């Protein structure tokens, strides 16, 4: 199978509270890492720049792609910003793949960024709530946590799962993030601590929620046949799929994410693979319930049986199908626009054997990233393969 595009290098700024920095400075930090790790790549090689960034409100700044690109020395090239909220980075990645696939470009950058921590939490939550429908959701007191909490309540009621199972996801991802030097929350937590953490939107608690983070990340893609020019160990992207849905309140089917199911089916068809052929997953876990639902929507287990994967530690590093070895959005952090490209960065490191041994998925050959915007209004699924 011919790959769609190849990742030749990647970079990621440290996620967390990054006081005093602007988004463009975080981006530069991620780009520096990508270029330092790929000495054969020069800035003049870059044909186009795709930037995932969700919110203009945090820096009162629109029009960020040209200045971010130009400010890093990519002059006069096409530079465009993509917004699909929490999956903006994955949207940038997909458009970058399509740019390569079209034959228009040889080498492109997909990047993502968000600077969020400099505003009070209640203001950040108001900005983030823009992901929801204005008249029918935000306007009536909806927060993203509340939508996911309502979904969690439905799941826990309908299936054999408890708040402990949700807590197990937090525990697993915090354990992975503890070993990730780029992670925002590098702290081991226990099920008891998660359950005892303060309520955010019942039944979700503080430790069920990803943090508000600053961060940036990027991957550099090229036409598959050019990859050897830049690196000896590229990672091929073999599937890129995207699907959308109506806002949560307008859906007939309230539980689970149809956009994930549709995008995953397309991605598996492109990659000529199924969930059991994937060695590691990076999935959207802005809230623990998201990861639980992703197990089912991505075909890792039957509907209603996700909790069993957790009970058997199957999705832990060292388990049968590790999920979120990076720590996920939950522990690595969720600088909204960066989360999608952050997943691709993690997968690039994993498949080229560059991660810390405590969270390395040994022998991984095929990986999948699943990024979700809002409450499942936009979903991107990519499949990656180590070359050789």
């Amino acid at each position, binding site marked *: 199978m011919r790959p769609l595009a190849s990742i030749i290098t990647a970079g990621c700024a440290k996620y967390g509270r990054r006081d005093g920095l602007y988004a463009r400075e975080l981006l530069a930090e991620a780009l520096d890492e990508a270029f330092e790790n790929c000495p054969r790549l020069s800035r003049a090689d870059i044909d186009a720049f795709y930037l995932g960034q969700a919110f203009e409100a945090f820096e009162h700044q629109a029009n960020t792609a040209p200045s971010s690109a130009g400010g890093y020395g990519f002059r006069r090239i096409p530079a465009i910003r993509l917004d699909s909220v929490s999956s903006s980075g994955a949207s940038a990645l997909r458009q970058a793949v399509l740019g390569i696939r079209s034959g228009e470009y040889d080498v492109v950058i997909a990047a993502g960024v968000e600077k969020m921590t400099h505003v009070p939490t209640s203001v950040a939550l108001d900005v983030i709530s823009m992901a929801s429908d*204005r008249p029918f959701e935000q306007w*009536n007191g909806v*927060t993203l946590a*509340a939508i996911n909490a309502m*979904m969690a309540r439905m799941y826990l009621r309908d299936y054999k799962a408890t708040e402990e199972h949700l807590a197990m996801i937090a525990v697993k991802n915090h354990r992975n993030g503890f070993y990730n030097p780029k992670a925002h929350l590098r702290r081991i937590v226990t099920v008891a601590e998660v359950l005892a953490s303060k309520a955010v*939107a019942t039944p979700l608690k503080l430790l069920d929620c990803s943090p508000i983070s600053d961060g940036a990340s990027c991957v550099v893609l090229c036409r598959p046949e050019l990859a050897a020019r830049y690196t000896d160990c590229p990672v091929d992207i073999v599937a890129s799929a995207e699907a959308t849905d109506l806002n949560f309140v307008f859906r007939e089917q309230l539980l689970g994410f149809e956009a994930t199911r549709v995008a995953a089916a397309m991605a598996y068809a492109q990659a000529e693979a199924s969930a059991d052929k994937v060695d590691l997953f990076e999935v959207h876990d802005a809230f623990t319930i998201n990861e639980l639902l992703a197990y089912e929507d991505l075909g890792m287990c039957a509907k209603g049986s996700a909790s069993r994967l957790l009970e058997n530690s199957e999705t832990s590093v060292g388990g049968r199908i590790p999920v979120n070895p990076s720590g996920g959005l939950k522990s690595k952090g969720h600088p909204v626009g960066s989360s999608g490209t952050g997943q691709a960065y993690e997968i690039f490191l994993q498949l080229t054997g560059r991660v810390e041994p405590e969270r390395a998925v040994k022998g991984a050959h095929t990986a999948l990233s699943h990024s979700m915007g809002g409450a499942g209004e936009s979903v991107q699924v990519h499949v990656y393969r180590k070359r050789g």
Partner: protein
Amino acid sequence: MESCRICASANLEVKEVPMTGAVVTFSEVVVGSSGYPLKPPYTLALIKLDEGGHLIGVLRGGGEKGADWVGKRVKVIFEAVASGEKVIQPAPWPRVFAQMLSD
């Protein structure tokens, strides 16, 4: 008649409905956003209307904390925005609340 601008359904008819329904799921919001005038905690409920479709609104008349509201009957109330509240919107839009009906 044109199609629905939200779900694109061509099966569209304007009619008055009683605006009653039942709680499908709910959440007590403890950490709220600065953009919503009601200070948390408040209970947000997703209502399935008897005539079909869903709405989300803050539950009123609930009372005790920690109760299970799933399946409870409610009447949906639309309320105009209080004068003086600064909002950005292209047209005035009411807020949705769900008033508990007695069993």
